[in-house]
């Protein structure tokens, strides 16, 4: 079987290299691209992200990448994994530095984390997660496993779309899943062995999907 072709969406402000390294290490055929045709030819997409929401959306639009992403994911049913800001971009909108519209792949809004004054923002560091839907991303994880988070905003979405939560002054969404759309608020590429395992699960999921559907 040929390996499924995973494309990391390069919109000029992600931590592309570390995501790329981690996916390669987990045995994926992976490339990085900012071209619409590559995104449409991919078997799966990864939307990384370090930065501010508004700037990210502006960059995606300026490169003409919004339509290809939506087509690949909605029309062609390709799996997509959003990481950190990349997960937040899946939402309808964000209130970070003024309101901006997102990709609307998972209904919900990105809001500042409501923390009591005793807790600091950004929420930075390793926090343990509580799993709600372990399959497929967390299939070998356990409740209480810690991943690396760094964010001040969180994805407020329907309970049905939540795959895992973490606790920071209350439940904060740690992972989302709706059909073929996945997102993790933490950085799996920076969460050492547990994070690499999660990326490995995504790669396996994509390979499985690929085998069942059209040949890769």
């Amino acid at each position: 079987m040929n390996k499924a072709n995973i494309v990391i969406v390069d919109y000029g402000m992600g931590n592309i290299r570390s995501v790329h390294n981690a996916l390669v290490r987990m045995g994926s055929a992976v490339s990085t691209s900012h071209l619409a045709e590559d995104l449409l030819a991919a078997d799966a997409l990864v939307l990384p992200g370090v930065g501010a929401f508004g700037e990210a959306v502006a960059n995606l639009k300026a490169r003409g990448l919004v339509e290809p992403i939506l087509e690949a994911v909605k029309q062609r049913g390709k799996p997509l994994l959003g990481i950190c800001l990349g997960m937040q971009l899946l939402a309808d909108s964000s209130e970070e530095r003024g309101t901006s519209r997102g990709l609307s792949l998972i209904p919900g809004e990105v809001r500042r984390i409501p923390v009591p004054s005793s807790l600091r923002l950004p929420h930075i560091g390793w926090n343990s997660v509580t799993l709600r839907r372990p399959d497929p991303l967390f299939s070998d994880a356990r409740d209480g496993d810690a991943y690396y988070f760094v964010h001040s905003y969180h994805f407020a979405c329907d309970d049905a779309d939540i795959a895992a939560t973490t606790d920071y002054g209350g439940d904060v969404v740690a992972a989302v899943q709706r059909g073929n759309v996945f997102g993790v608020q933490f950085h799996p590429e920076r969460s050492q062995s547990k994070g690499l395992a999660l990326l490995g699960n995504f790669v396996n999921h994509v390979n499985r999907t690929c085998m069942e559907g059209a040949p890769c």
Partner: protein
Amino acid sequence: MLKKRLIATLLLRDGLIVQSFGFKRHLPIGRPRFPIEFVVKWDVDEIVLLDMSASPQGRGPQSDVLEILSEYCYVPLTVGGGVRSVDDVRQVVRAGADKVAVNTHAVARPELISEIADVFGSQCVVVSMDCRREADGRYQVYTASGSKPTGLTPEQWASRCASLGAGEVFLNSIDRDGSRAGYDLELVQRVASAVDIPVIACGGVGNFGHFAPGILEGKASAVAAGNIFHHIEHSTIFAKAHMLKSGIDVRLDSQAKYDNREFDEDGRLMMLSADHLAEIEFQRRQGGERR
């Protein structure tokens, strides 16, 4: 619960990782790849890589070097040294860094902090502050590798940075650097209570028992050290085992646990007693006979 972080500070000088003593003397450790690989395997939570040759040589961080190093780094990586513009940050992030540390150029032009935060978010900006306790007992911030006084108190500068959009403060003590006397807890407390953003304590760790007070008394969100992590196998796991013993919630994924072991004052693992080893041997043989 959010875990307390243990951070390895790796100092690069002319391409080699060094140990630092009082910001003056430096002992070479070797090429950067290996210390990075080691501490990542040994459960370190983050790496702060500071290129001390950058500013004196009038350049920013070297993204070609970073690209190679980030390949071995599966924990968050903060990179500092000579960062002076949003373009520098873009290069560093593209090369694989998660955050940048700004120091000298942020004091010279504080808007740099908000410029970076506007593009990359606050979480990407770590303000690195080198502080000295003066003869009269007051604290002052220094720049240019601890050589230039700024007239700023650490509290003043930290709150200014926070209001400009900095995400974290990396707080180093010049007097404690390489002293093995432990953190300057008063300095850590002062800054941690002056700002709402996380404060990382650094400077002075001489044994593995020095980490816990940085969090319990200093109220830091994370503790960092450099020198102590070199030349000791499993050094960062030892550090975390000590923190756990002090009741601090840390991530310890490694199979190697040292929670029942004793360490000497230099942080070296004490040998198990002859009685204990005899007991293990006895049990092993008993198990063998039963089979």
